[in-house]
């Protein structure tokens, strides 16, 4: 228990000091994970919608694959993205390895299947309910997809938050493709891993408490927006 109470003290001290290095690490964590989730949403939600409302050969296989990819180990994603972005790899000339962009790419790969698989289910259910109506109004697939995405937006926000949680919490992928470079690619989770390595467990756990608090705050904000929107639009 000693260590845990020390960690809360450490977390409070870190927040009170507002150390610029810590602020930069927190800001980078948020930037990387928000960008990754945004990119994953742009790919994953329409993908989920298409798989959810259209019928094509091999669709069941795609559904099972998307569901299985939700369990992709971050360290495997990190390795694959590393091999792609390495100078010796196919995308090496871009020079993206050990940059925040590489971390965004890895987290996007990690989060896209989660958004696609979960939104597929939600949109498939919505399509069963409203598909007939949309078709009778003469809506094409593209318009149907956008309409259903809008209609199910509250469920989709929860899905996007799940994706954000996954991105913000993972350490395996960003460690490999970012390299945990001080001041360049160090984020909350890699900083926690580093402090654990140095044996400074209270500082590591203190950083962990800050990370969990941030994720909590973002979820609370999303909940507030949702409540406000529901009140306004019913």
């Amino acid at each position, binding site marked *: 228990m000693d260590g845990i109470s020390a960690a809360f003290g450490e977390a409070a001290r870190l927040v009170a000091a507002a150390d610029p290095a810590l602020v930069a690490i927190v800001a980078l964590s948020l930037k990387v994970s*928000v*960008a990754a989730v*945004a*990119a994953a949403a742009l790919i994953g939600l329409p993908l989920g919608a298409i798989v959810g409302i259209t019928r094509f050969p091999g669709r069941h296989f795609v559904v099972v694959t998307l569901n299985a990819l939700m369990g992709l180990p971050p360290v495997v994603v990190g390795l694959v993205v590393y091999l792609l972005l390495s100078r010796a790899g196919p995308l090496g000339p871009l020079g993206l390895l050990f940059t925040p962009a590489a971390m965004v790419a890895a987290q996007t790969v990690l989060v896209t299947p989660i958004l696609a698989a979960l939104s597929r289910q939600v949109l498939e259910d919505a399509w069963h309910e409203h598909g007939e109506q949309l078709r009778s109004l003469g809506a094409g697939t593209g318009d149907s997809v*956008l309409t259903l995405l809008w209609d199910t937006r509250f469920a989709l926000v929860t899905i996007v938050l799940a994706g954000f949680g996954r991105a913000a919490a993972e350490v395996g992928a960003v460690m490999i493709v970012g390299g945990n470079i001080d001041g360049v690619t160090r984020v909350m989770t890699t900083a926690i891993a580093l402090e654990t*390595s*140095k044996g400074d467990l209270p500082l590591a756990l203190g950083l962990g408490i800050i990370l969990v608090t941030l994720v909590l705050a973002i979820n609370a904000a999303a909940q507030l927006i949702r409540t406000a929107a529901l009140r306004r639009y019913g």
Partner: protein
Amino acid sequence: MDLRRRIAAATFALAALALSPYALAQKFITVASTTSTEQSGLFKHLLPVFEKKSGIQVRVVAVGTGQALDLARRGDADVVFVHARSAEEKFLSEGHGVKRLPVMYNDFVLIGPKSDPAKIAGSKDILDALKKIRDRGAPFVSRGDRSGTHIAELDLWKAAGIDIAKDKGPWYRDTGQGMGPALNTASSMGAYLLADRGTWLAFRNRGDLAILVEGDKRLFNQYGVMLVNPEKHASVKRAEGQAFVDWLVSPEGQKTIADYKINGEQLFYPNANQPGA
């Protein structure tokens, strides 16, 4: 549909946010180095001095020596700064490095629980100590990750006449971890392990661990630096990388290394003037 425009605007805003770090383009090099130099705090002390002088940002990726050399073999680093001479020379002979320069040394120490079940505390003979640990079957934590420290540990077992691959029993724990995590493991298990002095001095979670064997000249730990060969890897920043290598072995770089202390204790001893080191 209004929604499309809204989505487009949101996308644009997020892309701008994600790309904003690149607005501050600056000259930089990537240095593949070891966990011991990073976790001991040496780079935090060293790099600001070089960056201020040269205007070149040094981005350190701290991994084990084996992995650091592999990063450079793929062209993902400009400079390697590691500590396993045999592995460095292999890297050079494959043509990946330009030239290896000795930079500094410190030493390995044998860490163990104060209760010392193998009764080796105070010994100056590392080989004898390892034999006693093996005979006693006392818990021993190995890095097991092809790092410089792991390579040094394997060499010491060999020198002690012990074939560790064959002889290891349940007492020998292969963790496959960095120096810090291995120390954390040993600390919670009350196990022996080989550590570099720098990481040990900076390490906080010591628990019941202490230095038991030190001072044997076989525990010498030499660090070397190499520019990755630009002929082989076109992406290597030759001028900037060379500037860093030159500075490390310059009188100013060497003095900065010597000045790094924790609680008054010097962690690394510069020796660029010893060409054979």
